[in-house]
């Protein structure tokens, strides 16, 4: 298990989370290299299928990093994304896969430190769970 390097897909809002990523870059904070970042104009555009496909393709974890719920650039994007994440948690549970493998995080533009902390937290959680697929 110690050698296990989980593959994680991060859907990041182009507003809050990506600005936080830039701040973290300026702070010389490095994102783990096993996180694949997919930038989206708004997390509200992320469909349920988008969240499932990484698991189908072999990812061990998925997370959405978007705005604070009360200051979403597009008002309700992150709220919608959170509901879809909850739906996928239910689907994973139905497959006897740990729902902790998917999560949603609320960031704001200046939180460069937290952007990296969220990634590290997700890596540690998924690493503790082990690989999701046997094939």
């Amino acid at each position, binding site marked *: 298990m110690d050698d296990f390097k989980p593959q994680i897909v991060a859907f990041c809002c182009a507003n809050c989370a990506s600005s936080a990523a830039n701040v973290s870059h300026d702070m010389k904070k490095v994102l783990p290299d096993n996180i694949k970042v997919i930038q989206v104009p708004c997390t509200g555009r992320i*469909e*349920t*299928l988008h969240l*499932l*496909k990484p*698991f*189908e393709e*072999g990812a061990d974890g998925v997370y959405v990093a978007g705005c604070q719920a009360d200051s979403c650039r597009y008002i309700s994007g992150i709220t919608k994304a959170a509901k879809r994440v909850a739906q996928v948690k239910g*689907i994973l549970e*139905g*497959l*006897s*896969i740990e729902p902790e493998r998917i999560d949603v995080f609320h960031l704001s533009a200046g939180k460069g430190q937290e952007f990296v902390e969220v990634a590290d937290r997700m890596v540690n959680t998924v690493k503790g769970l082990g690989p*999701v*697929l*046997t*094939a």
Partner: protein
Amino acid sequence: MIVAESKPIKELLEMVKDFKKILVVGCKGCVTVCNVGGAKEVAILASTIRISGKKEGLDVVVGEHTLERQCDPEYINELKDVIGDYDAVISIACGVGPQFLSERYPDTRVFPGVNTKFMGGAVEHGVWSERCAGCGTCVVHNFGGLCPIARCSKSLLNGPCGGSSNGKCEISKDVDCVWDLIVTKMMEQDRLDELIEFQAPKNWTTARDGGPRKMIREELVK
């Protein structure tokens, strides 16, 4: 529209556990509108089954197809060249779909992927409510445009009953008493006196009580 909900994924997987090639078939009709059986939901269910297959180490092939409608034979025919490539079909149309598929392709195992709930409409985004019981003799004009058969828990034609309280039905705080709505609507239309007229017991032979129903329109029959 006909409103349906997805079957629990565990129940579905149990149904198709012995099959390695599965075709998920959606419908562009009612179940697309109620977000349970259209192309999007076909892709979600197919992906879910593939994830399950990979998790269990099984080599499962899952195909996706969405028909214009599953309640018309000409659209069901679209599958004739592909259905033979699969061991089983999951239809996520209403209950009509899996039956039409089974009738057209008798050698194929067809499974229902949704539970058909009722005829109704969207009262807000993501919320559907029953409006019609398909009784075969519509009488909503007598009740302010509201159907006491579908929307009263007792289907009372001479309501309300004693279970109506503050506009709600005694079965649940979340269920409006349709008779409260009917009386309010008739008062607004200054037609309350029409409710004094006794409604005779309904002839239920046009409803499901008369057995399975069939409709023939001679001008359309070839």
